């Protein structure tokens, strides 16, 4: 089951560049939350702060409090533990090219020392079914490389890989922006199904996509969160002038 995320006074820097300023919000459990905003507004940095991927860049740092369920991730846990609880899907599909489809899905478990073959088989099958890829790959699980799949399939493989470690939160950083419309709609269907089991945060440039998949939407601009509300309200009756300008296409 998913858990809620509580963010209090989050600030983040890349070198001397203050990319996130005083972010406060509550992301509800078992819902999809969309983050929109123009390029460079800090929404990707924000999701990377939720699983502490931000700090893998040596010049980056972050301050503030992020609570996932009961855990204050910057105080109570190591980054690797957080990343197992908070899965991430990246903008470009990034399967491990030397691994089979099976090994790609099992990678998170295997590399963390999990070796029970039988339950691995089950987890791989369940994860691929959850990411709607099972029927397309079940005959080539161990024969084909993850890199041999099409772009859309690769992205669903990456989703399966993230699901296999049984996270509570799934972060998606523009998961469909490198995909064609058919693959995009498959990913969106998937998000719709997955949010009953996981808390999903999706960064997107595509406002229709946000409107289609998310219950809540946050609008970011220049490193600040301008508005956070139900998706319906953001797109029909935003309270901030800048949000309205952005969604009506006046800038960005």
């Amino acid at each position: 089951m998913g858990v809620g995320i509580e963010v209090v006074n989050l600030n983040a820097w890349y070198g001397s560049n203050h990319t996130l300023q005083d972010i406060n919000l509550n992301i509800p459990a078992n819902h999809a939350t969309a983050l929109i905003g123009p390029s460079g507004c800090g929404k990707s940095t924000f999701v990377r702060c939720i699983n502490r991927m931000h700090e893998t860049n040596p010049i980056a740092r972050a301050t503030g409090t992020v609570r996932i369920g009961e855990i204050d991730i910057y105080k109570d846990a190591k980054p690797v533990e957080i990343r197992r609880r908070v899965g991430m899907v990246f903008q470009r599909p990034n399967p491990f090219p030397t691994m089979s489809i099976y090994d790609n899905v099992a990678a998170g478990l295997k590399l963390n020392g999990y070796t029970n073959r039988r339950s691995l088989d089950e987890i791989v099958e369940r994860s691929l079914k959850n990411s709607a890829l099972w029927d397309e790959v079940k005959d080539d699980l161990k024969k084909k490389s993850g890199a041999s799949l099409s772009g859309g399939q690769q992205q669903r493989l990456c989703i399966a890989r993230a699901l296999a470690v049984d996270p509570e939160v799934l972060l998606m950083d523009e998961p469909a922006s490198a995909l064609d419309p058919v693959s995009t709609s498959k990913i969106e269907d998937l998000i719709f199904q997955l949010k009953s089991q996981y808390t999903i945060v999706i960064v997107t440039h595509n406002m229709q996509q946000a409107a289609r998949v998310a219950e809540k939407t946050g609008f970011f601009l220049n490193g600040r969160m301008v508005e956070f509300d139900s998706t319906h309200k953001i797109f029909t009756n935003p309270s901030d002038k800048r949000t309205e300008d952005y969604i009506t296409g006046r800038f960005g």
Partner: protein
Amino acid sequence: MRTVADHTVTTLAILATVIVVAPLIAIFIYLLYMGASSLNLDFFIKVPKPVGEAGGGMANAILGSGILLAIASIIGVPIGIGAGIFLAEFGRGGKLAQAIRFTADVLNGVPSIVMGLAAYALIVAPKIPFLPFTGHFSAVSGGIALGFMMIPTVCRTTEEMLLMVPHAIREAALGLGVPNWRSVLSITVKTASPGIITGCMLAFARVAGETAPLVFTALGNNFWSTNLNQPIAALPLQIYVYALSPYDDWHRLAWAGSLVLIVLIVLAVSLVRFVTSRGVLKGAS
């Protein structure tokens, strides 16, 4: 105009390819011509005969080269790969990494005879307690000299191949909660392994033909010997001695030895490629 340019570039590229490949083929044909006639079973199973006696082979030198290269690889490959991993993944822009990178580049440029002299001065001439191969010429010191010659090539190719692994793949591993060291060993190095293996093969092929470092370390041996603490024969050494001799049958043996050396290197490289290419999946880049 565009077709003319296109044809010109294509022709130049083909010409360049021919110029690259021609000497290799020429050398091989000449070696076959000069050496093949002296190749017989004796060459592979007999040791050299004393001056004046006909026949004899280079079995001891073939074995000796194998032993020397095995020792060299045991030293050069792990140290080189380890240093390369450090440079690419952990040291990055640090001072230590820069110093290592500079040292490796200088080491790569050191003439092989200097490597041999250094090995002679450090481990062949002085008797070091508890190291039975020191104090005299020995197979181990020859292997060490060759191994240290492999390190810079292996190290720098490993580093370059690791740096070519896309950042997205490292992020994918870290995003799964895999510790950094595990991600480096199981994901980054594995992804770069075809290139790393090529680097090792290049280094291996280069030292396989080295003569100068062995003159001061392994020395050579006219008898069958597998004792690692004693002087040992090697194909390049044997070729060198035979080619400089005044005897016609030794010259022929030297040609045959050269042919065998090249064929063995090609076989070893192909074998490693074959073994490591098995298990590569369909569609893996």
